[in-house]
């Protein structure tokens, strides 16, 4: 298969991500899509480390590290300043993890999107506070072990549906993407760049360290997340127009769960319950897209 992805690299070797890190792969493809006329706002997340310590940087675009909860606000400022300088060409991107998006940075994100600031907010989602050592976030899925949901206290709450929350803002463009589907990811990043106003990309980025998986299965597991409908690929324009980009054939969720150490405690009964939730969510998404379940 030929990939319709640029050869140009805007991320250098020598970054300090763990082997198989989905977040590093996500950045590499994203930058290939948006190019080097881009400024990245980087609230605290794994990428605060991956980008490299002072005085080095692993990306060939300007980066401003920012406080954990400020991704939406700092980007608003960068955009406003560029506008005042007459620079409407440069793309402003906030690149945040799930903690900085779903939890602590949610207020600033919601504020920026309500104001329809002209920027792309990317959440690379590894489903827990991985940089601090695998603590649960509101993005951690039902069933997961983390260091703050250990033993029998594994997470028994659903993952927050962040895309739908953004869609409720009537954001001009919101989409999910996945490191195992680079062409789709690149297309969505380019599309986001071409739209004025706020854009949200939710990129599924596997974490070998936190998910207790071998680093070489990072892409495979990310792909199965789509194939099992656990992480559907879709996009929403102007808060109303839903397009589902990939329709998997029936594939039980257990195929996804059995490969990961973080789910090893789950029983068949738990798996049935999870399957039911995933089926419900998929049916709901189909209805929103005007399709029959």
């Amino acid at each position, binding site marked *: 298969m030929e990939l319709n992805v640029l050869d140009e690299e805007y991320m250098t070797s020598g970054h300090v991500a763990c082997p198989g890190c989905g977040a590093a792969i996500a950045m590499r493809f994203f930058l290939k899509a948006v190019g080097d006329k881009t400024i990245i706002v980087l609230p605290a997340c794994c990428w605060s480390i991956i980008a490299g310590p002072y005085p080095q940087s692993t990306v060939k675009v300007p980066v401003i590290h920012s406080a954990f909860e400020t991704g939406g*606000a*700092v980007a*608003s400022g960068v955009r406003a300043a*560029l506008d*005042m300088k007459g620079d409407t060409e440069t793309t402003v991107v906030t690149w945040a993890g799930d903690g900085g998006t779903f939890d602590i940075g949610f207020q600033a994100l919601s504020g920026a999107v309500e104001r329809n600031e002209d920027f792309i907010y990317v959440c690379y989602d590894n489903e827990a506070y991985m940089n601090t050592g695998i603590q649960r976030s509101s993005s951690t899925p039902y069933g997961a072990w983390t260091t703050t949901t250990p033993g029998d206290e594994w997470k028994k709450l659903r993952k927050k549906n962040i895309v739908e929350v953004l869609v409720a803002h009537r954001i001009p463009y919101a989409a999910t993407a996945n490191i195992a589907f680079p062409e789709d990811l690149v297309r969505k990043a380019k599309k986001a760049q071409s739209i004025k106003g706020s854009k949200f990309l939710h990129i599924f980025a596997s974490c070998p360290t936190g998910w207790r998986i071998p680093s070489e299965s990072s892409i495979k597991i990310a792909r199965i997340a789509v194939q099992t409908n656990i992480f559907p690929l879709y996009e929403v324009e102007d808060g109303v127009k839903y397009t589902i980009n990939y329709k998997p054939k029936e594939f039980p969720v257990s195929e996804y769960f059995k490969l990961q150490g973080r789910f090893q405690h789950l029983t068949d009964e738990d798996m049935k319950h999870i399957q039911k939730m995933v089926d419900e969510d998929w049916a709901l998404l189909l209805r929103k897209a005007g399709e029959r379940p």
Partner: protein
Amino acid sequence: MKRVVEGSQAVAEAVRLARVNVISAYPITPQTHIVEFLSEYCANGTMNARFLRVESEHSALAALIGTASTGVRSFTATSGQGLALMHELLHWASGARLPIVMAEVNRALAPGWNIWIDQTDSLAQRDTGWIQMYCEHGQEVLDSVIQAYRLGELVSLPVMVVLDAFYLSHTYEPVDIPEQELVDRFLPPYKPMFQLDTEDPCAFGSLVTPNAYMEMRHNIAMAMEEVLSLFQDVENEFEAIFDRRYGAIEPVGCDDAEIILVTSGTVTSTCRQVVDDLRSRGEKVGLLKVKLFRPFPVDLIRQNLTSAKKIAVIDRNFSFGASGIFAQEIRAALCNTPERPLSFGYVVGLGGRDVTEDVLEDIYWDTKNNEVPVKESIWMGLQEV
């Protein structure tokens, strides 16, 4: 041209004259009039600036960290709870060496809810790396905001211009509002040393190991120290154009005074009257107004206070478990001088309680009539509860 304006409008006029490019703010009483004036100026084209209507004070300052890092002149204003919410980013702004200017209208911290003057909100931010100036009247507010940009941009540090709730923010006074051309002569366009630039991509604020962090902090310390002399240079330049200056501190009759009252903010104006009255009755009393709080002008304070027998530091703020904050700082400044006055500390006017001439005169007599302070901090006018 002199106009009768509110303290808040004096701030807004100064921001306009400083040709600020982005204002980012969240409403909080008693700061609100400042941002209302500025919104109006942005909306009607009086200013060529963007007004970011963010969803919190935290985001207000975060947005300015973005604007200033992109190389444009930036302003915000807040009070009390709003400043407390900004705390983390106050450190960030100075650590990132961004010359943001903020007008901080002193407001008491809750609970209980209180919108009136109390300096504890800004003084509690003394370790955040911001230059802090405390103002006495509307003219000083306007002049200080303009000077704040000049000073902050020279050393790449943020500046807080502090004014009393209501007594200053909402009080109308005649204020000379200078011509744009004169302000342009004093304040050149902002030329940042570093900025986000896709032609010259750099990373700002990356992980710093113990190998470099300490040197970066030392650089901030050196920049703060430099402010002490630069403040005078900036005042010289300002005076040459506008014929006004204030001083990091202002001594009034300190040379021959046996007792010196030390004040900041609007209490100073009341105290000037009290000192005049006492002097006319033969009392050897002086007044020291402290304007620049960060960096703290230690040498100037030593020079002006050491000849007195006693000083009475008047604090409209309090650090629980310690004392009034100006009293702490002044005692620390004096402790290494062999000849130093006894220092009396008085706590007054918290949460907006009036500080009258009588209160200040009581302080004078208490200082004079007691050989040593009865307590480290004497709370004035406490009622039976």
